[in-house]
């Protein structure tokens, strides 16, 4: 139905959609996790926060799991190379995520204060660590990652965990973390009232501003100080994927090429700024739903900017640029991409439909009275 080249581009878009879906959906309950110990001052207030996402965090987390599965199916080399290379970063993400299912489900099952406070911090870790690490990972992708392939396509990562934590990557971590916290705060404004609402509003504006400032700073940094990568030969889009069949060079300013090549590409970072600014304004004038849409758009813009700047690169290699992974040579076979294309266009709309239904059923403010009246059945 589609030729191979088109499918490769479609899958680049799909993975982008899944990442944005993850940020918008799982992002808001992770943001709630980060804000939990600060916005909720008493046990009841914290239970209000937890119950705003109580019925949904599980479904939302599947965006993360599906992201992993889709990258496995569509870009097996990226799945293999990135997750084994970023080994300890991945372990940190997994271990932090362990706190979430048990934190949500077990926290309010016992009355002990120590028990509940411990799980609150568990939920804080589970909501805070993953977004920071994802940001740091993107920061490293933009700079290139030290890995290479052998002749039989076995990847070896030659860096350390600590070198992932370089200044630019940490800045990317700040962007990611701040945008997720602001997004979570916007969600809390939709679902709460009173003190919690007011504290969330303050957090939404502070972290929304921080995300935009950090994003602007990273933009300036990339324009002036981060070299990009350029393919100089091979790597024909329609060819069978073989990442060793090309030459790549490092070139200052290369991450800006796509913006001069395609005028529309400039829209993507603009969406990040406009969405983020609108989110702050709408929080200020107490329009939480619009603020939530604003922060969603902003995340689309931020994630999209990283993707568009690097296209067609997915994971450039700093130590052996020819081993870099691109949209053209990291992919599955034509058949698998096509099969997964159909699976996605059938099931993703269904997922969006029943998720929306679930949110509609559970709509409305979660109040302190609700917690008191449902002491034994609420989280």
């Amino acid at each position, binding site marked *: 139905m589609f030729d191979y080249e088109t499918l490769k581009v479609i899958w680049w878009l799909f993975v982008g959609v899944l990442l944005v879906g993850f940020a918008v959906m799982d992002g808001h309950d992770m943001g709630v996790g980060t804000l939990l110990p600060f916005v909720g001052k008493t046990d009841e207030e914290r239970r209000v926060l937890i119950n705003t996402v109580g019925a949904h965090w599980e*479904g939302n987390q599947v965006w993360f799991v599906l992201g992993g*599965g889709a990258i496995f199916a569509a870009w097996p080399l990226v*799945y*293999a190379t990135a997750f084994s290379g970023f080994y300890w970063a*991945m*372990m940190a993400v997994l271990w932090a995520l362990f706190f979430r299912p048990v934190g949500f489900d077990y926290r309010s099952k016992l009355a002990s204060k120590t028990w509940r406070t411990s799980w609150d911090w568990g939920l804080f870790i589970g909501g805070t660590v993953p977004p920071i690490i994802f940001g740091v990972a993107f920061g490293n992708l933009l700079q290139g990652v030290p890995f290479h392939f052998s002749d039989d396509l076995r990847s070896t990562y030659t860096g350390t965990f600590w070198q992932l934590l370089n200044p630019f990557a940490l800045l990317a971590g700040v962007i990611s973390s701040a945008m997720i916290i602001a997004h979570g705060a916007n969600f809390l404004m939709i679902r709460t009232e009173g003190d919690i609402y007011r504290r969330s509003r303050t957090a939404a504006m502070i972290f929304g501003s921080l995300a935009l400032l950090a994003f602007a700073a990273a933009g300036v940094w990339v324009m002036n100080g981060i070299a990009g990568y350029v393919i100089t030969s091979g790597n024909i889009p329609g060819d069978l994927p073989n990442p060793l069949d090309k030459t790549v060079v490092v070139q200052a300013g290369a991450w800006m090429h796509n913006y001069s090549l395609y005028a529309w590409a400039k829209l993507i970072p603009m969406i990040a700024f406009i969405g983020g600014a609108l989110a702050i304004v709408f929080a200020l004038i107490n329009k939480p739903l619009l603020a939530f849409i604003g922060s969603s758009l902003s995340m689309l813009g931020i994630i999209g900017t990283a993707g568009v700047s690097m296209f067609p690169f997915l994971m450039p290699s700093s130590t052996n640029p020819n081993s870099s992974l691109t949209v053209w040579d990291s992919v599955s076979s034509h058949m698998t991409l096509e099969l997964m294309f159909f699976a996605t266009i059938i099931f993703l709309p269904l997922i969006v439909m029943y*998720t929306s239904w679930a949110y509609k059923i559970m709509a409305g403010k979660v109040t302190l009275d609700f917690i008191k009246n449902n002491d034994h059945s609420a989280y």
Partner: protein
Amino acid sequence: MISAELVDASRLQFAIVALYHFLFVPLTLGMTFMLVIMESTYVITNKPIYKDMVKFWGKLFGINFALGVTTGITMEFQFGTNWAYYSHYVGDIFGAPLAIEGLMAFFLESTFIGLFFFGWDKLSKNKHLMVTMLMALGSNLSALWILVANGWMNNPVGSEFSFITMRMEMVDFWDVVFNPQAQAKFVHTISAGYVTAATFVLGISSWYLLKGRDVEFAKRSFRIAAAFGFASAMSVIVLGDESGYTVGEAQQTKMAAIEAMWHTEPAPASFNLIADINEKEQKNNWAIEIPYVMGIIGTRSLTKEIPGIHEIKEKNRVKIINGAKAVTALAALRKDTKNEALKAEFEKYKADLGYGLLLKKYTEDVSLATPEMIQKAVDDTVPHVTPIFWSFRAMVAIGTGLLALFATALYMSVTNRCGKQKWLLRWALWFIPMPWIAAELGWFVAEYGRQPWTIFGVLPTHLSASTLTAGNVYASIGGFVLFYTGLLIVEMYLMVKFARLGPSSLHTGRYHGEAQH
């Protein structure tokens, strides 16, 4: 070359995280189904006690589910972090069912589980039942896709090796989905999950009956569990047997190991009930044999032969020697992809490529393999017999015990004597851990029995691991064990606490210990 220590560490980590995960999966599979039965009864009869049953057993299910999700996240990423070469080599086929599992099943299950717990006051009775059904459908479909992936590891159909991309590629998706191996595993695994949930409900209900508390609630739960458990236990045994005789060489090797069958016997072969296995001399010192049974189970005929370990190994020797030629031709072909002579040479031996790769454990250049190396590779092709032989027998013994338990429980239920026989109640109570033990043993037989392969006949385990250091993997094993064990203790504590509280934990005012308040 990947060090043997790294491969062992990676295998150990995978076994630990998979076995932990599988402590929680079977109960989830079965409980969702039992909750559907209980809630349907509620919707039909309109008796609140059935609603209380759904809520109470649902509470225990939720405590279990949380850890199922926790340990499940690891599984989705474990292939990338620790089995990177595997992920590259077979991701084209193996990744698809995993991604479809997320799209079709896990999303469904996880979205509706939220409404299951929190939607009681917001949904009509029928709509809530529909939510519960969709949750159960999601968890069972999830098992289907995972076992499609796992079935392919054991019987890699519908795919072909490509020398340009240096990996296996999908050629027929429907072959992968309708892989008889996958279908047999699916039915066997979900039935085992149903038995687990039935044993869980039966055992805890029996405890209430022994204590003489919440009798109405416990009796009704007991009857549902007895009927559901009996049907499921029959299905596990009948369909467990199915996975014994399905096609494929992986199964033949596994079956030979399960039966400690060192030599091909004239058909129909006898079944070794127990045996004193001598791995060193590759024979059984003695065995108690039941004539004909093995041949009938294994081939469903009286005339077909089942190959023994020695015969399987001799066949594999030829494949290894041919496979070495494929490996050598492939390396040359990768450097000169247009060379027709190399291509022809490679195509000639391509079918045995995986067997040639077995030699990579002993030498980087397989064309230089010595006869000793070839002998070692040949010996590797059949896993250690003793652990598989005994694990299988323990699993079958437990399964038989469970069938007897459910048959008795069902008989007492239909003759209206449920709850009167203390010995039966105690039997049910003490049997609670049994299905978990059987499930873990079953995992071991299936996956250890697949060694030395990750993908049978295609990719050896020792090539599949990521290029990490063994030290790193041991350190992450430490982390996983620490986390999982800590969480398991917390989970068991809550599970026991709420099982003891019983339906009074719902605070309806109708149950044991609540009248005093």
